[in-house]
């Protein structure tokens, strides 16, 4: 379990709650009454350093740094039980995804996550259908009597990834251009 956090009032980021709540889907953050129903039904409640209701409390208190570096935001299966059970309709799973986005922007993102962007940039799918694997996948599909994969327009995919600022996460290959 997490240690007690000691901080001066001046060091709290009191704007943090509004940074989150300005997203329509995350506005519900401000309604939390700290009942703990989310944490009591959480799939991974015994494995996180901050349980869901404490993540929310920390957001409201302005403990931005602590929240964004906790394992709680990544050790989550996004099963949505918290959101489903909350008596105040706080959409914790939406808030959590947003916290992951914020951590990612600061470079605090497990490589298992950032690498999926690279794979999709490369071939349009997260389970790769790249030149090297195509033959194998096509053969397996053919044997099962399945139609060929219809590949997506890669220019579209790459444009979207670049346009939304995810390009920095990717080490682009020269021959892609």
């Amino acid at each position: 379990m997490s240690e007690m956090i000691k901080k001066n009032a001046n060091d709290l980021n009191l704007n943090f709650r509004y940074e989150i709540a300005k997203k329509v889907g995350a506005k519900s953050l401000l309604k939390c009454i700290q009942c703990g129903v989310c944490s009591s039904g959480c799939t991974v409640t015994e494995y996180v350093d901050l349980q869901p209701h404490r993540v929310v409390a920390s957001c409201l208190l302005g403990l931005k740094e602590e929240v964004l570096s906790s394992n709680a935001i990544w050790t989550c299966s996004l099963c949505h039980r918290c959101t489903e059970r909350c008596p105040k309709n706080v959409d914790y799973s939406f808030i959590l995804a947003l916290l992951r986005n914020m951590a990612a922007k600061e470079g605090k993102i497990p490589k298992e996550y950032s690498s999926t962007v690279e794979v999709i940039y490369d071939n349009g799918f997260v389970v790769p259908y790249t030149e090297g694997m195509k033959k194998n996948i096509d053969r397996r599909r053919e044997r099962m009597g399945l139609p060929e994969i219809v590949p997506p327009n890669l220019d579209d995919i790459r444009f979207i990834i670049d346009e939304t600022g995810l390009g920095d996460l990717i080490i682009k290959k020269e021959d892609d251009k």
Partner: protein
Amino acid sequence: MAKVEEYKMFQGCTIGNRIPFIEASARKVFDTLGIKTTDAPFACCPDPVGFNAVDHTSWLAMGARNLAIAEEEGKNIVSLCNGCFQTLKAVNHELQHDDHEKEKIDEILKSVKKEFKGSINVKHFVEVLHDLGVEKIKEHVKHEFSGLKVACHTGCHYNRPSEIMQTDDPMEPVKLRELVAATGATPVDYTEEMLCCGAGVGNAEEEPSMQVLANKFNSAINAGAEAFIVICPACFQQMDTNQKKAGTQSNNTFDIPILYLTELFALAFGYPPDELGLKFHRARLTSFLEKYGLK
């Protein structure tokens, strides 16, 4: 709605590229039941746990692009995967209810010559089968699974968050149970039926992922289940490939068949096991098939 509705098939890249035998069973079941589908150049949905974690806007734009492709043909989407289903349905919902996000996405899509209108629906294949009717499905059952006790596992993204997904009860889903019962099999009640399979957390940490899975297995096996019936490829892979790991961590030995609902249906409809690629399962099905006269 007309019964001859044609769907755009969204098998998703896990099923299509990694475990295509699941797609084969789904297409056979759809054929038998007269559910029509066509393919489209969809890209990755992209997945609601991983990609959405990196950047929400990018996730919305990629999802909206897929929706726009189906919209161009005026067809609803049928998804074989919980993850794709949740992404496409949630993106559809968010862009229909959040003008601020929609404005951003419209701008991005314009550059790739696509337009999101919010004019189609996204359906999970379990919904499509259930809408067709349990009675209609029973008509096609040639091989009854009388006596077979199974643990139904819907997975989290099929029915939650219910405000958006609107498929089934968020904590006590019934559609999968009713469909399974149509084959003569009996869904058992087990304490951890609504527990996540743990796949989503495996990206970050393996230990909780395996412990959650072990808890799930133990609960179902104690209730007398001989097999799991699943409807999500992420759950399928987690449960089919990690039995040894989950066992080692929890001092158990697990050896329980994991079947996709469409595989159970295809077997019940009389398709021979060989045609379904059941040999590609990691958890062996040999004794299960023998016991139910399907060698």
